[in-house]
């Protein structure tokens, strides 16, 4: 074996204990008579200061939480699962949900009535937005209810 092959083995199999005893002896014989390979071997310094760090406890807590969530999930139809969760949610929180929907509806109606305000024009009534219309030819408003309010 030449020096190149010896140095390849020194930095790999020899260092890692992957060689049989016969080959180890041959390498050691070569090193004892070869200054270059001996110097090369001296340059190979094993690692120090490599310590294992324990993972923080929150890692397992997060994994546990994910597994628990997954176990609650159905294996089959996602749509049915979502409907079921929604139904459960509505049953548990029906009062706050009803209150929220009511408030939201009132707000939408109020907003619409502000935007749909009535503007008076010369001699007639002009109604803007929200589907209200004026029969310009007759000067009448669309429905009797609208006429009453306007």
């Amino acid at each position, binding site marked *: 074996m030449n020096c190149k092959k010896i140095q*390849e083995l020194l*930095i*790999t*199999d020899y*260092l*890692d204990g*992957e060689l049989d005893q016969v080959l180890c002896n041959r390498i050691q014989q070569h090193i004892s008579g070869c200054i270059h390979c001996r110097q090369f071997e001296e*340059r*190979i*310094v*094993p*690692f*120090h*200061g*490599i*310590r*294992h*760090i*324990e*993972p*923080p406890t*929150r*890692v*397992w807590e*997060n*994994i*546990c939480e*994910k*597994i*628990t969530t*997954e*176990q609650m999930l159905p294996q089959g139809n996602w749509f049915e699962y979502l409907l079921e969760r929604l139904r459960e949610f509505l049953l548990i929180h029906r009062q706050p949900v009803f209150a929220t929907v009511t408030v939201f509806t009132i707000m939408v109606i109020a907003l619409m009535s502000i935007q749909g305000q009535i503007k008076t024009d010369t001699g007639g009534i002009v109604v803007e937005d929200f589907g209200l219309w004026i029969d310009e030819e007759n000067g009448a408003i669309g429905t009797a209810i609208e006429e009453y309010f306007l």
Partner: protein
Amino acid sequence: MGEISSEILTRASNGDIKSFEQVYHEFSDFVYNISIKITSNSHDAEEVTQDTFMKIYRKLKTFGFCSSFKTWVYGIAVNTAINYQRSSIKKESQQVDFETIALTLKCNTATAEDNIIEQEDSAQLDSLLKELKPEHRVCLILREIEGLSYSEIVGILFIPVNTVRSRLKRAREALMAGREAINNEL
């Protein structure tokens, strides 16, 4: 490590969380530490550890007991960490991770002098490891830090033994050159 009975694995694969906790405690140390070495960041290592164990949990039913469970877990951990590292490299350049440094400094050693030397070695090793290609780094970590044999590394990375050999050679040559460059500067 790796002394998990097939009974525990079967129970864990059926969703028994206590059994899976045993699997976690058996392998979390390896998974977390190899993740830190590959990602160079404790926060990313936590993410990788969580992802790895979720993959293990989901795939447990497919583990056929034909191969070593340890090798199977190691393979998932290494691949998850490498993929995470590749995607995070694309996202952002590496930042100084103070938490990792703090954790390293917290580790107890026999004497103050030893502590300083080991911290210096550890910090130097970390900085040198970052310079290696990920595939070279992984081989070196599995061999030097985890103490795995060439055949075990072959089983984890699914590469020929000569590739393991050549990656170790290149990684060590690069580390030797890096160390010498640092020592010459001092």
